């Protein structure tokens, strides 16, 4: 059996190690918090008025490059706001008028008019931005970007809430 003094010493060793560990964890936590970017105020709406409904013809794509989105009006009259950032590695996509597809200049992903992937390397559809239609004005909340893993029709917004206008 070890002497009493030895036991005490090993107890203090453990204590020191424990305190040291705690201090280390705290330091890492503090550093990470110091370095983590300030949270953006996602809940504050930043509505951007893109224009009157009638300005956008069916089956058309209007770029808003400074706001980082494309406003798409589908054949059936519905609106989608597609993020300009390629879902692959974040380059800015372009609308190819002739082939009716979005093209990414960086690694040549293609997307359909509603943002679905036609051609790898992208694997997910383009992200969308929320649209609100008020008094015939199409408004986009540019503070929010909704990532999606598959195409859903819920992103499509219609002027007439009950059906397709």
């Amino acid at each position, binding site marked *: 059996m070890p002497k009493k003094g030895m036991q005490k010493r090993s107890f203090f060793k453990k204590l020191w190690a424990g305190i040291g560990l705690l201090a280390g964890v705290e330091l890492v936590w503090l550093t*990470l918090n110091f*370095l*983590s*970017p300030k949270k*953006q105020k996602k809940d504050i709406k930043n509505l951007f008025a893109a224009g009157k409904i009638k300005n956008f013809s069916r089956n058309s794509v209007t770029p808003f*490059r*400074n706001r*980082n989105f494309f406003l798409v009006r589908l054949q059936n009259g519905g609106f989608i706001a597609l993020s*300009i*950032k390629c879902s*692959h*590695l*974040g*380059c*800015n996509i372009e609308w190819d008028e002739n082939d009716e597809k979005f*093209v*990414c*200049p*960086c*690694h*040549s992903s293609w997307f359909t008019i509603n943002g679905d992937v036609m051609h*790898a*390397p992208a*694997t997910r559809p383009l992200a969308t931005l929320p649209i609100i239609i008020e008094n015939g004005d199409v408004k986009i909340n540019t503070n929010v970007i909704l990532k999606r893993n598959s195409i859903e029709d819920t992103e499509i917004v219609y002027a007439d809430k009950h059906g397709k206008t």
Partner: protein
Amino acid sequence: MTDHKVRQAKARRRKLNNLILHLHPNMVPEKALKFTLTWGLGGMAALLFVLLVFTGILLRFVYVPTPEGAYDSIVYLKQKVVFGNFVRNIHYWSATFFIVVVFLHLMRVLYTGAYAKNRASNWVIGLCLLLLAISMNFTGYLLPWDQLAYWAITVSANMLKYIPFLGESLHRLLVQGDEIGAPSLLAFYNLHTGLLPLATVMLLAFHFWKIRKARGVVIPKDNPGDGSRKVPVWPNLLVREFVVALILLAVVLIISFSFDAPLQERANPSVSPNPAKAPWYFMGFQELILHFHPTISVLILPLGVLILLFSLPYIKNIDPEQGIWFLSKKGRKISICSALSGKLFAVIFVLLNEYLIKSSSQTILLKNGTIPFIVFMAALYTHVLILDKKFNATIAEILQSVLTIIFSSFLVLTMIGIFFRGKGMALIF
């Protein structure tokens, strides 16, 4: 030797002792002098790092780390500052050579079996230095704030997002926000000119100390008879190092004089250039991303290789022959074959992928690279089995071969990315 000469030599040695900070012992084994043992690569890396620090300090006097000021300060440097362009070029080319030389140094340590036993910890320190070298280059890449910088960093930083669970937060932490902007530039600037070089200096001190603790670089075992002769470090080793340093310096200066570091138009966050390429040392990854699902290309493959590299000296029963290139005659043959087959494999894979798999309507598993990946791993495994059973290769020889295959195919992918990818990342010849 006369008394006078002996005294002179002693005095010189004393001065040397102070001057070069005990980097070297007074006497070194004659075998360690052979240039083709180390190719002087570690020393070259050290010299390039010194060049980078000196030119970097100068550049800091002119550079402004804000999106508004950065590009203009570089243009000002090029046009108005005396030797500004030259200093920038030296920094650029030293950085490029640094990556190449550090990587070659790693290869030489691998192929001379210098990672094992009492050098294991130094191999790990070395790997950290490699990661630091890449991080320094990467953070420096953004600073000119031109189109090249902005989009290369955008694309590379976005690769992080594919890491499951942690990816998004890691990206936010690195970029200090959702996309590259003023906070990213400030963070990159601080990392590039503060934290990372500081960490490198500290690790380098550690690295050099460990070399001395291991009694110098690795040398072949003594054959009976030839003995282990030792010679004074001056002039034998120091003159050699000096000559290598001068030649390297001359090459860097001539290239910096003849070729300008690139500077494109000012960064424009709303227009991506076509094609947008990652920095050249990440081009292999970018090529991988074209062919494999990102989980494979940015997570499984790099992590696997890193784990293999870090654990290499600690693998059970690994006992490479030390100080002999490729470990043995057999090892040399295996390595050459591995290098060739690795290269061939990469070329065939890229061509197949480009002209057959992509254009036809195959299953998604083929298109996103899952099946090719499994086939590759199976082939690698078979290769290991054959080396083990048929050729009776040692563990060290087998792993050397595996790493050779990985490195040589990655090299081919990097070359393809740099030289054979044009608009829309289409293959061009």
